C-alpha cells in the first residue's frame, strides 16, 4: 500500500497553473526525492499534502484515505524550508510548544522532548534561546519539531539548505534514524548530489507535472542518457576529432558516448593512436542526476 498517493492534482492561482495533473506515490519506508526547478510546483504540492492548499481537482490519499484540505493529518509531519521556530523560546520550549500543537501531552510529551534533544545533539543547549543558535542547530531543531509526534510520513522541504557539510551529514543521519523507526520520507532539495546519494527513488517535477519518476538508473534511461561518457585529455590539441569523438571547446579534450565499455573503448583508443595523438588522462562515467535533470527540465532560467 502506498503511504502517500497523489492523483491528477491540479491547482491554479489565477492564471498560473501550479499543479497540472501531477501524480505520484510514496511507498512505505521509502525516501522519495522531489526535484524540480524553482516554480515547478513542489511547494504547492507539499502544501496540498499538508492540507494547506485546496486542489481544484485530483486527490491526496494518506495511508489509503483520501483527505480533504484542512482535514487533520495526525500521522503527517511537516518540516518547512524556513526555520519555523520561536526565537525567544528555548529549544525545549519550542519542542514542547510544537509537541502540544501536535497532540502530545504529559509524560509522552516529556519523553519525546527528551528524545528530540538527544537526537538533535542539543541536550546541553535545551535552555538556550533559539535566537542564539547557529544555522545548523536551528535546522536540526526545525527537523525535530516536525517529527516530535512520531508521524509515519514526513514531508521535508529543503531540510539541509544553508548548512555546513557536517550539519548536513548529521541531518541525514537523523533522517536515517527516522526511516529505521518506520517513517516514510518525501524530500525536496536542490542539492542533486544529495538526492542522488540518499534517495531511493526520485520524482522530477516541472510545469506542475511529474515529468519522470524512478531510480537514478531509470531516470537516466528515461532521459536517453543511459550510455557511458568517455572523456580523454590529449597530450596536444587535435586538429580534428577522430571518428566517434566530439570536441567540447578545448581542442585537447575529446568526449564520446558509448553503451558497452568493454567492447567499444579499445576501438576508440585505437583511433586516437592512429591519429598520432597521445592520451594523458581517461575518464569513464555514467550520466549524473545533474545531467538528467537538465535534460528533463531544460537549461532555461525559470525566474
Amino acid at each position, binding site marked *: 500500500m502506498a503511504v502517500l498517493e497523489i492523483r491528477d492534482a491540479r491547482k491554479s492561482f489565477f492564471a498560473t497553473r501550479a499543479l497540472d495533473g501531477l501524480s505520484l506515490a510514496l511507498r512505505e519506508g521509502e525516501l522519495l526525492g522531489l526535484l524540480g526547478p524553482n516554480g515547478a510546483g513542489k511547494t504547492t504540492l507539499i502544501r496540498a499534502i499538508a492540507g*494547506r492548499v485546496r486542489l481544484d481537482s485530483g486527490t491526496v490519499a494518506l495511508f489509503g484515505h483520501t483527505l480533504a484540505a484542512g482535514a487533520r493529518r495526525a500521522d503527517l509531519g511537516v518540516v518547512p*524550508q524556513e526555520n519555523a521556530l520561536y526565537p525567544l523560546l528555548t529549544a525545549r520550549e519550542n519542542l514542547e510548544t510544537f509537541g502540544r*500543537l501536535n497532540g502530545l501531552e504529559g509524560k509522552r510529551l516529556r519523553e519525546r522532548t527528551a528524545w528530540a534533544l538527544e537526537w538533535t545533539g542539543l541536550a546541553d543547549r535545551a535552555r538556550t534561546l533559539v535566537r542564539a543558535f547557529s544555522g545548523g542547530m536551528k535546522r536540526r531543531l526545525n527537523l525535530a519539531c516536525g517529527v516530535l509526534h512520531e508521524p509515519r510520513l514526513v514531508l521535508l522541504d529543503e531540510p539541509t539548505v544553508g548548512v555546513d557539510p557536517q550539519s548536513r551529514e548529521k541531518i541525514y543521519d537523523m533522517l536515517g534514524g527516522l526511516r529505521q523507526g518506520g517513517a516514510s520520507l518525501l524530500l525536496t532539495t536542490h542539492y542533486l548530489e544529495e538526492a542522488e546519494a540518499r534517495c531511493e527513488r526520485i520524482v522530477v517535477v516541472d510545469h506542475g507535472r511529474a515529468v519522470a519518476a524512478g531510480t537514478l538508473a531509470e531516470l537516466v534511461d528515461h532521459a536517453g542518457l543511459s550510455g557511458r561518457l568517455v572523456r580523454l585529455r590529449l597530450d596536444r590539441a587535435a586538429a580534428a576529432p577522430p571518428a566517434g569523438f566530439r570536441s567540447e571547446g578545448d581542442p585537447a579534450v575529446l568526449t564520446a558516448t558509448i553503451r558497452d565499455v568493454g567492447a567499444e573503448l579499445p576501438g576508440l583508443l585505437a583511433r586516437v593512436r592512429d591519429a598520432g595523438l597521445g592520451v594523458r588522462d581517461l575518464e569513464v562515467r555514467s550520466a549524473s542526476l545533474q545531467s538528467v535533470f537538465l535534460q528533463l527540465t531544460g537549461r532555461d532560467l525559470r525566474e
Partner: protein
Amino acid sequence: MIGLLVRSAWVQLSRDRAAQVLSFIVPIVFFSVFAVIFGGGTTVDRTSRLRVPVVDESRTERSQALIRALEADSALRVNVVVPPDARGPGRAGEPFTRALAEEWVRRGNAAVALVLPVGIEWSIMSFAQGERVPAILLSDPSDPVASRLVGGLLQRAALRVAASGGADLQLGPGSPAERMMPVPFEEERVLGRKRQSPMIAFYAAGIAVMFIMFAAAGAGGALIEETESGTLERVLTSGLGMNGLLLAKWLSLTSFACAQIVVMFMWGMVAFRLPLLAHLPGFAVMTVTTAAAAAAFGLVLATLSRTRQQLSGLANLLVLGLNAIGGSMFPRFLMSETLQQISLVGFNAWALDGYLKVFWREAPLAALAPQVGALLGFTALFLFLARRFARRWETA
C-alpha cells in the same frame, strides 16, 4: 558620488509607502486635528456653546433679569429647565434645582452650573458696605477654564442688567477693590474635593490607552514575523484552525494590555496618590474591556498589513490620530462638541470616558454600561474584521 547617494535615497523613499505615510500623512493629520481643536477651523468656538444649567432660587425680577442677560450672551447656552435634547439626569422641562444641577456637573453633562441663591438680588451691582450674597458656581475642576469663563460672563451680564435699568447702583464709601465686582460669586467644586492632583487619573488613563494601542499593534505584528519565518504555517499545519489561532493571539494581547494598564495605574497610585484601591471594581471592568478592544484593534492592523513596514505606518497613523482626537493628548471635554462627537468613532474615546467616570465622577458600575457596551461592540467588530483579513493565511 554624493549626488548619486542623495538620488538613491529619494528613489527609495518614493518606494517606501510606510516612510511616506510617516513623513507626510501623519504630520498633516496631526496638524489638522490640533488646528480643529485649537483653531476652531471647522467647528464653532467651544465657548459659544458652553452649556450652563442655572438654578434660580431667588426667583426675583433681578435674578430673572440676570438670567435673561446670560441667555443673551452668545458664549453660553443657558438652561433653567432640563432641555429636551439633553442626556443628563432629570425630566425634560423640569426646573433645575441645586441638587439636580450638581448631578449634571458630577456626571459630566455640564462643566459648570450657576446657582442664584435667595438674596442674590441685593448683590447685583450693589457695592455698599455689608454682607453680599454670592452666586455659586458648581464646577468640575477637570475643566478649569469653564468656571472662570462663566464667572467673567456673569459680571458682564450683571453690567447689562444695570445698563438696562434693572438694578440700582449703590456705591458705598471706601469700598475695597474686591467689592467692586458687579455680582460676587464663589466656586464650589462638585468633584475632586479631596484630591491633590485631580488630573492624574485622566493622564494615567490617557497615556495607558495610547500605549496599549501601540503595544497591541506591535505585538500583533508578531503574526507578520511568524508568517515570514514559517511558524504560522507550521502552527496552522498542526491542525489548529485560524479561529483558534486568532483567539489565542487575542487572549494573549488582551492579557498583555491588562498588565500594561495595571502597571501604569499602580505607578500612579504609588507615585501620585492615584486612588486605585478605592475604585477597583470600576477599574477592573474598564481595564478588561479596554484591553480586549485594544488587542482586537492590534489584530486588525496585523492582519491587514502585509509587512512590518506597512504595519508600522498604519499603526502610527491610526494610533496617533485616534489618540489626538480621542482625548489622550488633550482632554475631550475641552474640545468642541462636534469634535467630541466625531472622536467617538474611536474606541479609545469611550475607554477614556469610562476611566474618567470611575476615577473622576465616581460613578457606580452601572453607569459604565454605555462605555462597556461600546468597547465590547468595537471588540466584536475588530475581531470580525481581523478574521476576514486573516483569510489570506487560510487554505489557499
